[in-house]
């Protein structure tokens, strides 16, 4: 390409566009950076004013996040020397680690419920979207509208009926209950997004597979699914982000067994004063799965796998 073709922007325009993107990224990433930084501060540094940008990093927040601690007498502390580096950190407050906190458990609940409901939404959504895309279904448009309409009301508006229903069904505070609930909310999004992606895949591929000796389901599995990978990946990311971050239902419907991380993280703050570094550490770890999931699927998001294979 020559440097002065009509379609190519000049280097100055590129420079301006690039600067704007970087500036926007900095602004949006600032709170994220702040959270990550706070996770490595001491409680004193975390609340100092003016805020500290340069400080001595410590793992105190992470230790507090993952452990429960008790204050001990001087005699006890002298008689029992610190067992490891984490113990050593809490000794400066005359405390000892007595066991793990509930964070690990809550985090695993989030993983089970988040990924479980994402898998279920994608599984059901893909089958429904395929049916809507390919078969003549009576009242298909009305059904699709109904599916969408479940998303028109804010989910929390039906919180009380769901709460009562879950209590009598025994689904309150269970992993299954939360997976079903998040799936019910996400399925409309999944069906609509995936129908769009599957509509784009020409029927000829399946017809070719049918003639090549495969059944309808095998054609779907071997030909449609691989080509819908891009759409499935991006839909899965949307579903996971919703289920992962959901707070209101989690507060209302979960407590001892199935509580997820979002309602748990704020409770850390109540243990032994305003422990901002522990909260920030919890938020940082909480961000990781969605980030990793998105990075893993990014390849699918960016690669239009049908690109170029279709002769028009």
């Amino acid at each position, binding site marked *: 390409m020559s440097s002065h073709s009509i379609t190519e922007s000049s280097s100055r325009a590129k420079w301006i566009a690039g600067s704007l993107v970087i500036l926007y990224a900095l602004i949006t990433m600032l709170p994220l950076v702040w959270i990550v930084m706070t996770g490595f501060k001491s409680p004193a540094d975390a609340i100092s004013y003016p805020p500290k940008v340069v400080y001595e990093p410590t793992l105190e927040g992470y230790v507090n996040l993952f452990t429960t601690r008790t204050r001990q007498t001087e005699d006890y502390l002298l008689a029992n020397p610190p067992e490891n580096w984490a113990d050593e950190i809490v000794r400066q407050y005359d405390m000892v680690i007595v066991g793990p906190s509930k964070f690990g458990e809550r985090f695993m609940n989030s993983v089970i419920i988040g990924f479980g409901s994402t898998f279920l939404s994608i599984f059901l959504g893909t089958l429904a979207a395929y049916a809507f895309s390919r078969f003549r279904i009576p009242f298909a448009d009305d059904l699709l509208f109904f599916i969408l309409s479940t998303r028109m009301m804010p989910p929390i508006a039906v919180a009380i009926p769901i709460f009562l229903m879950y209590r009598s069904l025994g689904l309150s505070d269970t992993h299954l209950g939360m997976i079903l609930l998040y799936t019910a909310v996400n399925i409309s999004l999944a069906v609509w997004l995936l129908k769009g992606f599957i509509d784009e895949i020409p029927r*000829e591929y399946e017809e*070719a597979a049918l003639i090549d000796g495969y059944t309808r389901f095998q054609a779907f599995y071997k*030909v449609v699914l691989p080509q819908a*990978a891009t759409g499935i990946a991006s839909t899965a990311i949307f579903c996971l982000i919703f289920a992962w971050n959901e707070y209101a239902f989690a507060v209302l419907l979960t407590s001892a067994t199935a509580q997820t991380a979002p309602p748990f993280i704020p409770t850390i703050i109540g243990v032994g004063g305003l422990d901002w570094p522990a909260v920030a550490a919890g938020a940082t770890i909480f961000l990781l799965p969605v980030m990793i999931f998105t990075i893993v699927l990014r390849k699918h998001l960016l690669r239009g796998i049908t690109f170029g294979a*279709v002769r028009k």
Partner: protein
Amino acid sequence: MAEVVLNGVSKAFGATKAVVDMDLTIPDGAFVVLLGPTGAGKTTTLRLIAGLEKSDSGTISIAGDAVDTLTPAQRDVAMVFQQYSLYPHMTVRENLAFPLRSPYLKTPEDEIARKVLNVAEVLHIPHKLDNKATELSGGEMQRVSIGRALVRDPAIYLMDEPLSSLDAKLRADLRVELKRIHAELAATLLYVTHDQIEAMTMATHVGVLDEGNLVQFGTPRDIYENPLTTYVAARLGQPRINLLPADLLESAPPPGALTMGLRPENIRHGAGREANVVRVEHLGDQTRLHLKVADHDVITLTDPHTDLSVGATIQIAPLNPLFFDAQGARIG
């Protein structure tokens, strides 16, 4: 390979009649070409035989057995589509092996490898076997697509304008290739096109479709020389047949004749009615003359090295004219 018979097959999509009461016998080992403009029902006929569409009435049988209730896989047919020919997420090798790996054929892997290589050699693509389907040129894609049909040994090969999107040179090469494959495999083929050169060069039989009706079925030569209607006459021939008032060049047309069909090569020069030369097209191997006879356009062929130019006047007379009545049906 097998005989395929359509018996009174009809198919409508809503109010549109795609195929109307069609009787068609594709003999074992024949290369049948279906000709007709867009919307004539050619593709629907293929899809009905393949089992991708269910007929509204009538029966289809392959090798003597009715197949109307069978799935496409059970019918043992191979089809080459006009478009969207390859599975984009697979390599060329996987594409070619796909039909052989189906639960219907369940071919052993060593036989798959042998057949795939064999077909790749026929189509001159062995060096492309491990490419992704998306990395091929249009011509290569279509060759692989034809190859995916050829790896099988089905009752019938169905081809839906497989060459229409290729450039002229590749088309000519693949025409020869398909004809050779037909001869070597003694395969039965049903081939849809609107390209008359494909029809004339490859077919053993030509069927002409008009709005879902099979209007004529015969050898290419028969269709060209003895068309039953003006519609069929106009389907074949390049340049097209001249359709003129019956009495324009002939003083005594048969009774009832309204139209005279005159192929460009069937016009004698040097005697008869006067005509003005309006345009001269030198094509190298032939020269086309566009003439005006009493307000009617006539196209004829002449010597490639003709000296005639625009404005000249020549005399023309018909040779073996075809006469049609007011409904367009042939008389005499």
